[in-house]
């Protein structure tokens, strides 16, 4: 867009006066304007859906049809059609329980794979991480039948376990990568001082890995909060998360659009807030995934 063919040719500068190549700094000054405009255009495209959500969540049906005027009618209707409070609570409980399991198993196994190697531990580690490649849809049917057989789909338990299992491979990979960065001498010194390896993990390594724990928590929170498929199949109707409740509400195709927009807004808000506060942890999780 810096050199669209329709723009009139710039006034011909006397060629001899121009240096053969612009210096890097001069070039930066010249391109800053167009680049900035381009950035704004992309930002508008990325933010438009959020504006649309906000704008239309505060309308009633006729205001929506006219795209004019605002009211809170949609919100009143939303709270009548969807148990928003209890579903937000369900989301919180399911997220917290699954993340707790993921943190317990991924920190301990990550430490073991990084620092307490035993015969075959390398292979075991590879197998655990390879489970990342299993798409949920490939196992969802047997998983559902198994969970039903063990009566785990009449409460939070089944969904929590599935979320925990799905999050564990990447979390373990991340934690192991992190613990590899801790020096062996530190661990050995603690053991020489009489600590058991288990206590060394709890008292020395675990506190050092708080940044990695934060990354895993943020990544998993957003993943689980936003998930539909597992919640849809493994949670009983009364224990639905907000994301599942919202999808169910929309699939009826009878709910008015402002109500759905209000619901979308309220379901998206917690994850957006977490993102805004902890975004560097998300970025770190992504770049660690690249093996950087």
């Amino acid at each position, binding site marked *: 867009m810096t050199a669209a063919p329709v723009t009139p040719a710039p006034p011909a500068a006397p060629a001899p006066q121009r240096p053969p190549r612009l210096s890097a700094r001069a070039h930066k000054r010249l391109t800053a304007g167009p680049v900035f405009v381009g950035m704004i255009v992309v930002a508008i495209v990325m933010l438009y859906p959020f504006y649309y959500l906000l704008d239309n969540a505060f309308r009633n049906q006729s205001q929506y049809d006219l795209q004019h005027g605002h009211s809170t009618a949609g919100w009143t209707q939303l709270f009548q059609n969807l148990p928003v409070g209890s579903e937000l609570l369900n989301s919180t409980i399911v997220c917290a329980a699954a993340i707790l399991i993921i943190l317990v198993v991924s920190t301990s196994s990550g430490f073991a794979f990084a620092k307490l190697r035993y015969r075959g531990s390398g292979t075991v580690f590879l197998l655990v991480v390879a489970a990342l490649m299993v798409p949920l849809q490939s196992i969802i049917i047997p998983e559902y039948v198994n969970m039903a057989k063990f009566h785990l789909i009449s409460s939070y338990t089944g969904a929590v376990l599935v979320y925990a299992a799905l999050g564990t491979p990447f979390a373990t990979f991340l934690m192991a990568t992190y613990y590899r960065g801790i020096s062996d001498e530190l661990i050995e010194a603690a053991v020489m001082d009489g600590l058991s390896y288990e206590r060394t993990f709890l008292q020395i390594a675990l506190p050092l890995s708080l940044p990695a724990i934060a990354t895993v928590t943020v990544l998993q929170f957003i993943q689980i909060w936003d998930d539909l498929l597992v919640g849809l199949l493994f949670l009983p109707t009364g224990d639905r998360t907000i994301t599942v409740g919202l999808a169910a509400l929309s699939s009826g195709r009878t709910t008015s659009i402002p109500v759905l927009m209000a619901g*979308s807004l309220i379901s998206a808000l917690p994850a957006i807030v977490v993102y805004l506060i902890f975004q560097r942890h998300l970025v770190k999780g992504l770049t660690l995934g690249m093996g950087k």
Partner: protein
Amino acid sequence: MSASRLTRRRRRAGVLLSLPAVVLVAALLGVPIVQAIYYSMTSWNGLTSTWIGPSTYSTALTDPIFWRVIENNALLLLCIPFALGIPLAIAALLNEHVRGWRFFRSVYFLPTAVSWVVVGMVALQFFAASGSLNRLLADVGFGSSATDVLAGSHSALVALAITFVWSMLGTNTIIFLTGMATLDPTLIEAARVDGLGRGQIFFRVTLPLLTRFIQFAFVITVISAFSALFSLIFVMTGGGPGLGTTTLEFFVYQTGFAQGQFGTGALYGIILFVIMIFVGLVQLRLIRPADEEGS
């Protein structure tokens, strides 16, 4: 304390500490995949199964409906150049570090935090017959070209692909930005001194050095396109019109849970798994050389 006793204690602690993760992953990811392979060769309704054998695969692979679904997956791949190219251009611009580039980076990455359900909900209104897209077209004088995008099977797939590209934009931009941050600035400077223009520098110096990051973004994007769009399809189109937007992952759900054919559903799941393994092997091949470099 003797060294061998210490080693023994270390190994025992290692087994003990890694056990919970191994059990969890084995029980909930390992066992079901083996079951899925077994049940894919049976006729199964969730309660009773009848063994049929590998012939279920030849039956499935000769079913025209299956190929119609695979065609959707293949068509979806056509959006990959956009899903990579646009973020690459944006990353190149962000890398100029103009005023406020950190703010823009946060804005572009924001959709990562939003569920596919919400994204699908807004996209549904955007592409609807009376939605924002048609209103926008009318405002700029193209009112006559107003169409119900989601009513045509190919145009609905295009709408799905556009939504997907929009959602992946932040993730891929971050990947490319990370890559660009690893580049040695003296190389770029040397190219400039040699008299290369900006475009030439980008295509002949920067791009080749980013190969690994482009391949990583490619793999992530393909995996997402094939196995992360269930919720988006569920909310936006329900797989329709007809089979218009039913991809393999959605077909697994439809076959298993809507039609109750658990065996056939498991079979489609295994085919999806095989495709993912193929993509994963490509990724392993790409990442391994870099790992050796690092250790």
